[in-house]
């Protein structure tokens, strides 16, 4: 009676979970150490680590490792970019898990629901029209957060119009808002820049790129990522209850209204800053939670940490691929994640199991 395929998650049970956490953490660190040695400029592995050692702990020869092109490549080009990939991967996949819980639908994702586009519109407003400069240094990120938050509220409002939200309405609302936002931001970018620069800017915002990584943005992004992930690590019980719906949650002692808004704010913060730092990178929040759900089940106690780790690892490797796949030129990372993510999305949509709208409400 207890055959494996009836169990929830292929790798059910505590030991597997802890092994997975340890394994993913180890892989993440090792990948980081290995990926930092890969690049268009050929640097000796030992030198790369000596630069990092000097920069972080001040150990080593300042003459060789503290300045010069080798030091700059490692410390100002490669490492910030990898750190950025890790932070964005963790942010987007955690935000994906949370969005899926909020709308009770495994098809939700910051990109699919148009939230990333909203963030990108907010950021373009800030950069091109100078909206929100009064907000201080991180104003572009804050504007991206506001854009993300407004769109997420908008999608949920549109999808709930005239009855309960179904998958179909949710996706339509997301697609529509996403188109509106990206059209406006592309328009702004086009009008503002001369034609050659415009294409580049539009590409960066709509297809995503980690190329402009620097420590200043990374700092902001690391803060929102760490705070966001840590916050949602503590929220597994409410996230689980969200999937049961409002009524069951009330009988189990939680009124979801307040939490939903709070979660939207925190996840919009994570998405906003991720988009501000690297443009729109799609489907990460869809693929990663889905893999984890197949392997470990729906319980958010495991979902949140595993998704953050796997998301980080995934985007790190996606970036390495983008840099090495084509010779001489670099593939925008959003193209790669969409090439992997869109088929997964279609497969999810086709699978009947996920009650595509009708049965639940």
């Amino acid at each position, binding site marked *: *009676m*207890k055959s494996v395929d*009836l*169990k*929830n*998650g292929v790798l*059910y*049970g505590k030991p597997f979970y802890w092994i997975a956490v340890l394994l993913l953490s180890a892989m993440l660190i090792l990948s980081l150490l290995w990926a930092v040695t890969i690049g268009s400029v050929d640097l000796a592995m030992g030198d790369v680590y000596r630069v990092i050692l000097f920069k972080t702990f001040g150990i080593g020869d300042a003459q060789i490792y503290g300045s010069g092109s080798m030091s700059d490549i490692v410390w100002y080009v490669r490492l910030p970019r990898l750190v950025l990939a890790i932070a964005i991967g963790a942010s987007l996949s955690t935000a994906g898990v949370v969005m899926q819980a909020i709308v*009770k*639908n*495994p098809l939700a994702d910051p990109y699919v629901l148009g939230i990333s586009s909203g963030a990108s519109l907010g950021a373009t407003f800030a950069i091109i029209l100078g909206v929100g400069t009064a907000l201080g240094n991180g104003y572009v990120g804050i504007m991206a957060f506001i854009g993300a938050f407004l769109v997420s509220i908008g999608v949920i409002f549109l999808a709930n119009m005239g009855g309960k939200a179904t998958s179909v309405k949710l996706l339509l609302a997301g697609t529509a808002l996403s188109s509106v936002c990206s059209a406006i931001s592309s328009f702004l970018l086009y009008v503002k820049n001369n034609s050659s620069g415009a294409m580049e800017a539009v590409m960066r915002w709509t297809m995503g790129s980690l190329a402009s990584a620097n420590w200043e943005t990374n700092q902001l992004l690391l803060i929102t990522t760490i705070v966001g992930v840590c916050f949602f690590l*503590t929220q597994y*019980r409410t996230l*689980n*209850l969200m*999937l*049961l719906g*409002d*009524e*069951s949650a*009330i*009988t*189990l*002692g*939680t*009124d979801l209204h307040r939490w939903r808004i709070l979660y939207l704010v925190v996840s919009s913060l994570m998405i906003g800053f991720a988009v501000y730092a690297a443009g729109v990178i799609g489907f990460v929040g869809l693929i990663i939670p889905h893999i984890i*759900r197949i392997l470990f*089940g*729906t*319980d958010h*106690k495991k979902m949140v940490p595993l998704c953050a780790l796997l998301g980080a690892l995934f985007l790190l490797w996606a970036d390495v691929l983008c840099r090495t796949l084509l010779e001489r030129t670099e593939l925008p990372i959003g193209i790669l994640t969409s090439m992997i993510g869109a088929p997964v999305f279609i497969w999810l949509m086709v699978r009947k*199991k*996920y*009650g595509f709208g009708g*049965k*639940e409400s």
Partner: protein
Amino acid sequence: MKITTQQLRAVLGNTEILRGIDFEANDREFVGIIGPNGSGKSTLLRCLYRVLNPSGGAIYLDGKELSSYRVKESAQKIAVVAQHNYYNFEFSVRDVVMMGRAPHKRALDRDTAEDYQIMRQSLKAVGMQDFEERSFSTLSGGEQQRIILARALAQQTPCLILDEPTNHLDIKYQLWLMDIVKKLDCTIISAVHDLNIAAMYCDRLYAMKHGEIIAQGRPRELLTKELIKELYEVDAEIMTDQEGILRIFYHSYHKREERSE
């Protein structure tokens, strides 16, 4: 635990579903609510378990008004098994039952060994201890309902509300579920469709029609031919069998026409 309502009213859309309900369930009493579809049974229960806001009147738990409890506090007092649960996501049986511990947890509390122990005891109480790692959606309707009952048991509340939980269940599971519930040491309030089941298990019954309580009392006194006719517009015979259990038999419309000829 004692639950009372005073002149409880509820409006849905433009229709008044509850028109001044005075209801009472005493400590450790098994109270059944009977009545035809649309009589307001479910609405009354939904007010009691807080998913519906009454438009007038008041509900008291042990003399204190329900609305003054925080949602978490009332979930420590009342657990609910409602009609059917369909989830868009796949939970394991363990995950579902563990959610019953949620009302007893503060924001940063982790699950303790005691919580797991309570989860296992609850599964055992409904005879599903071997299903802990199964995926909830692969269970049959009857099994799912037992898991939801186990979740309610894991809440360890002094009151349990059953909102027609035995709908869609075959007779074996209906009796099974009521047997488990009957053994519990707590106040039970249940909407019941089947009058025979109501007669077998309930200490006291309320009869509802058009949003009002038209009668209440012990099953033996309340369930009469006349009342059943008034409630359901159905002719019935009532007997007591050798074991002293009330049995209700219905006449079909078909037969009635033959007789009147």
